[in-house]
């Protein structure tokens, strides 16, 4: 039986390209393709015509040429004679550094504020609400400038530490908070393996190995305690044992290696010695953390509120203590809601870290998209490379989101 809706067979007429749904999509796609190709062709044609008119050409040769400028914070070795490419890599590493740091602290701020906003304490809840609203509703650019202002205008300059009656003094005599950065003591080993720099790395590897060993040992102790509890109903006390496992080997090693701290001191123009965390890094780090923290706080609040109240009541009925209800019942379920927007906030942090040029932090936008672009005048090449980098990072983070989403998908049996 042939139904009326059956399309006519066999004969193909050109009008079917528009009227027949089977072929219409091909028509549309062909038109779209032609339009797209024509516009891209038009734009590229303009580009080459403009470039030719000015006698310029697209070339990435400038990447190999010496950069010629210095950078104040580098994670890898860099001098003004290094290539522009290396300057870009320095910038990329700095971007990643501030992004990772800011993601960690923003999560801490956000979770704290989100949980506290739901607190029974009226004052704290209101205070957190104000924090969230203020930071969410004012542009991050203004926050970066304000926090940079606080860093440089309010904190003391190194020269204030000078003289017989200095205007500022070091915190507990150990750390200095200046408007050029924060200087904290640097741990050093006086009797380490070998005096060379490589020796210090071995020392730290040993410390890390010890910490891993302690972790495994405490896990073992806890597991044993659980076994005993399950068998006898009495849980042996493990706190002191665990503390001993954590600290005894560590303190012993430090004593043997002769741990001392190099305390920063004012020498010449600046503080010297110790670990320096530059003011630009702190400013952009703190600004991004506290700004994004406000968004994460909202995610966390929404996630916790998404867990039905019956879960809390059921947990309470089972006799679980309030503190553990949060960590054992509510949070694991809330995380399912919290984590996807959390990761997209991490993505925002990475993208917003491009505002570091405002505070003079040498991220990739400041090196490749800033000084290199200015000095070489290669605007098109620099901006393209810059976009490529950010695109790669965000595709990577998107991939992580997808993997996570698939992993936590409710497994229905």
């Amino acid at each position, binding site marked *: 039986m042939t139904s009326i809706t059956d399309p006519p067979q066999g004969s193909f007429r050109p009008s079917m390209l528009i009227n027949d749904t089977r072929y219409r999509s091909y028509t549309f796609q062909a038109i779209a393709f032609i339009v797209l190709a024509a516009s891209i062709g038009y734009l590229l044609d303009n580009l080459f015509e403009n470039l030719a008119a*000015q006698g*310029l050409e697209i070339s990435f040769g400038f990447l190999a040429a010496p950069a010629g400028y210095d950078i104040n914070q580098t994670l890898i070795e860099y001098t003004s004679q290094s290539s522009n490419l290396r300057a870009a890599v320095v910038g990329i590493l700095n971007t990643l550094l501030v992004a990772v740091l800011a993601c960690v602290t923003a999560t801490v701020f956000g979770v704290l504020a989100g949980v506290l906003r739901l607190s029974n304490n009226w004052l704290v809840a209101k205070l957190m609400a104000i924090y969230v609203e203020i930071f969410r509703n004012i542009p991050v650019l203004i926050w970066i400038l304000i926090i940079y202002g606080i860093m*440089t*205008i309010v904190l003391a300059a190194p*020269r204030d530490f000078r003289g017989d009656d200095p205007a500022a003094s070091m915190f507990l005599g150990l750390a200095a908070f200046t408007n050029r950065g924060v200087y904290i003591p640097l741990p050093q080993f006086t009797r380490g393996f070998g005096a060379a720099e490589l020796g210090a790395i071995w020392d730290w590897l040993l410390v890390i190995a010890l910490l891993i060993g302690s972790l495994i040992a405490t896990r073992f102790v806890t597991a044993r305690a659980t076994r005993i509890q399950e068998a006898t109903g009495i849980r042996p006390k493990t706190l002191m044992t665990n503390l001993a496992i954590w600290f005894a080997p560590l303190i012993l090693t430090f004593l043997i290696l002769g741990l001392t701290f190099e305390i920063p001191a004012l020498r010449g123009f*600046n503080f010297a010695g110790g670990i320096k965390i530059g003011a630009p890094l702190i400013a952009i780090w703190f600004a991004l953390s506290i700004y994004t923290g406000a968004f994460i706080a909202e995610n966390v609040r929404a996630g916790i509120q998404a867990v039905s109240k019956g879960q809390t009541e059921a947990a309470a009925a089972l006799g679980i203590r309030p503190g553990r209800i949060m960590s054992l019942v509510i949070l694991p379920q809330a995380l399912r809601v919290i984590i996807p927007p959390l990761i997209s906030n991490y993505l925002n942090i990475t993208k917003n870290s491009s505002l570091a040029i405002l505070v003079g932090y*040498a991220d990739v936008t400041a090196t490749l998209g800033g*000084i290199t672009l*200015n000095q070489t005048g290669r605007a098109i090449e620099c901006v393209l490379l810059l976009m490529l980098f950010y695109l790669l990072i965000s595709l990577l983070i998107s991939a992580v989101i997808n993997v996570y989403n698939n992993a936590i998908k409710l497994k229905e049996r």
Partner: protein
Amino acid sequence: MNKTVFFGAVAVAGLAASMGSAATLDDIKERGSLNCGVTTGLVGFASPDANGVWTGFDVGVCRAVAAAIFGDPTAVEFVPTTGKTRFTSLASGEIDLLARNTTWTFSRDVDLKFDFVGVNYYDGQGFMVPKELGVSSAKDLDGATVCIQTGTTTELNLADFFRTNNISYEPVPIETNAEAQQQYLAGACDVYTTDASGLAATRASFENPADHVLLPEIISKEPLGPLVRHGDNDFGDIARWTLNALITAEELGVTSANVEELGAAAGNNPEINRLLGTEGELGAMLGLEADWAKNAIAAGGNYGELFEKNIGENTPIGLARGLNAQWTDGGLIYSPPFR
């Protein structure tokens, strides 16, 4: 004339301007105004006052060129540019002339395809430090923190200087001059380095200028001048010879006060006559009116007047002529002859 209302609207709103790399002069004339790229604000060289009127030394050059073309020094649109956008603005035709204290360098002239039409200020990079640091030479700056305005040649000069002297420093790159001053005053850096003229201007604006000293070292040559697109020779000639006219006018004693009188009729000095168009056809050779130079000089005065009015010793900037005196006074300011 077939244009859509969209482009009509856009053109009326000043959103779209036509441009052609070969015939900039025609475009400027058709448009009725000159698009001149300036800084986003450097007092003395180019800055908007409280009423939004641009004033300054570089601005004076723009106005002189506009006056030479149109006879009207206000026929200029000032386009603020940053260190990053200035070259692309010029290359893409958004501006016709860039007068933004830009250093004349080989790579900008050759690689970036621009033509510098001359030098309107001979500058050099210097250092400013607080007096209390007790530093008397830039070579004592080992380990210092240095504020630099980013996007300029100063970053490269600084790196070269410290490298050749084998001393270390920590650069603090800063976007704008105002922010750099703030950092310097707050003690976030020990030294502020930029062109000596900028340092003098900055120091003059401090509450206690005497607390800060300029170090004797000038570590670079910074010939600052206006520039146009490469291959834009007709318009480039106008800009070049307008600047030269201002310089020659000072040399010959033609000022904004007496230019009307001198230009009314041919006088005794043939060079003045040629300059002011009462003799010869110099204006026509440029494709301009005969009184082009008269208009340019009347716009803001000759080179010396522009200097004194905007950055000279009687202004808050307080710069001495120094290298920028006429060659007859032992300076470097020298114009080819009008002949």
